[in-house]
């Protein structure tokens, strides 16, 4: 029973990190209708900036986090300006957008690899003592990572549903052309969306780095976020969060009770099973192509 509760808490915390990633994808996808493949590179970038600020510049954790968020926002917005916006202006097909994003991803990840090398690094924060409730030990990093992730998600929700800018983003996600006819500044929305992307990826990167390790290919974990959003149901933020939670808990249960080696295999099998029995995901609406 103790093991079960420990795994559950750990699963919720990793699920919260997956939620940040899944929401980051869904945000760009809902507005611009393409998957921002570079997202995982932003995540690795954010984690490495924070890592360097702490290990080389000896900054406190909060300052490193702030620097990482700001630089990742700059990276995300400049990727949008340099690689996506010219294509969008030309109304290029989605495949071209994806390839361009993939290029950004390849370039950033491999630049990080060139600078730091491919080794796994421990994120330089002091290991926090776990909290004991009875016999159950709960990692404080899990609590912090999960808690802050939920706060970020709540702030994102408040931004999208309680501010004028959020209204602009939501309007653009329904129909970007009509939204711009109604006086919504398209370029402004692009900057807002990619700023949010930068924040989400940086926070997710830092916490993933603390929980596991910092390495150039750490962005591969965003596959999990994709799987989670397919499992939950495409095209809605709550479904992405539910899918992430289910996947996070499933993974920690598998690594706790079966074998951590086959954790990724299980999440992939889970995806196939879900697709076979729930073709639209657990909470998804029927996916019909818009004419």
């Amino acid at each position: 029973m103790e093991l079960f509760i420990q795994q559950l808490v750990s699963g919720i915390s990793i699920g919260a990190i997956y939620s940040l990633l899944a929401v980051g994808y869904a945000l760009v996808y809902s507005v611009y209708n393409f998957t921002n493949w570079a997202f995982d590179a932003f995540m690795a970038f954010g984690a490495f900036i924070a890592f360097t600020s702490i290990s080389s510049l000896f900054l406190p954790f909060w300052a490193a986090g702030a620097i990482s968020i700001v630089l990742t926002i700059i990276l995300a917005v400049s990727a949008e300006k340099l690689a996506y916006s010219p294509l969008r202006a030309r109304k290029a097909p989605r495949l071209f957008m994806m390839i361009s994003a993939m290029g950004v991803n390849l370039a950033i990840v491999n630049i990080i690899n060139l600078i730091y090398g491919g080794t796994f690094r421990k994120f330089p924060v002091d290991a926090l003592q776990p909290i004991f409730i009875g016999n159950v030990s709960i990692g404080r990093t899990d609590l912090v990572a999960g808690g802050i992730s939920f706060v970020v998600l709540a702030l994102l929700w408040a931004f999208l549903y309680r501010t004028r800018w959020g209204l602009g983003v939501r309007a653009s996600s329904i129909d970007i052309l009509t939204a711009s006819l109604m006086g919504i500044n398209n370029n402004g929305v692009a900057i807002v969306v990619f700023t949010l992307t930068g924040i989400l990826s940086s926070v997710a990167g830092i916490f993933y780095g603390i929980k596991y390790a910092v390495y150039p290919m750490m962005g591969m974990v965003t596959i999990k976020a994709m799987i989670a959003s397919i499992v939950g149901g495409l095209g809605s933020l709550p479904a992405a969060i539910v899918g992430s939670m289910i996947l996070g808990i499933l993974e920690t249960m598998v690594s706790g009770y079966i074998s951590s080696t086959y954790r990724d295999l299980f999440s992939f099998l889970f995806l196939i099973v879900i697709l076979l029995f729930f073709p639209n995901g657990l909470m998804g609406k029927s996916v019909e192509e818009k004419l």
Partner: protein
Amino acid sequence: MGYLIAIVILCGINIVAALGVAILTGYTGLFTIGHAGFMALGGYMSAIMVKELNVPYPLALLIGGAFAGICSFIIGYPAFRSRLRGDYFAIATLGFSEAIRLLLNNTRGLGQSLQDSTSSFGQGASSLLIKLGGAFGYMNLPNVTNVWVVVVTVALAMFFAHMYVTSQYGKNSIAISQDEVAAEMMGVNLLKTKLISLFISAFYAGVAGGLLGFYFAYLSPSLFTITKSSDLLAAVVFGGIQSLIGPFITAFVLIGVPELLRTFAEWRLIIYGFLFVIVMIFRPQGLLGYVEMNFSFLGRWWNAIFRRKHTPSQKG
């Protein structure tokens, strides 16, 4: 000389796999970043065929390809049936190839855990899995892939790919890549066409994996990483959408040039990344996008030579 031949062999093997990606990504418009997984499946299967069952080498390559093709349905059927959009299909292929790599990395452990089983099937599976060697690699394969095998395979692969894309199925694939809804309204069976295209694509990758194994004389999961998939995708993106000759040329250049310039190895993927963006912005159709392979110039040359020979005699 041996070094150059080695490069030609590696280029040829990658051309076969890149043609597979061209059929799927270039012609059917389905983005894949997991073809290394299909290469691994085909490679291991044909290696098992030759080494454990003494199947002749060319037949083993075909069996490996067919095995990769059939395995592609595991991912293809659920994904296409649920109309997974392009990007999510790409993720599914990536997940598939990572799962394959994970399994191959751990065959030793799997085999050892099966060792206690009493059934003869369990025993056989266990000894086979241990022989596959996990992350260490499947060793001592016959070293039978030589330059002629590769040249013949590339020629056949090119020929059949050309036949496919100019056939009715190929036209259906192109229609799907242009507009799925319109294609379906014109009576194209989306699921069937996509599955056929995926099967052929995985078949090509599987054959390429087999060739690779019998060239290196060993197979290890580290040969089939995401970098491999990115290389293949890069060949198709730079070579051009809806073109076979484009990926053919770029696969040759992209594999051959880094082999010759080993010192720039770590810069290669960075340059690819920037090139992806630059190509998409300035020449999105790729180097030879929408250029069909065309041998009519051979006929023209033949006619030109033929006529020149005969024109004087006619005058005379």
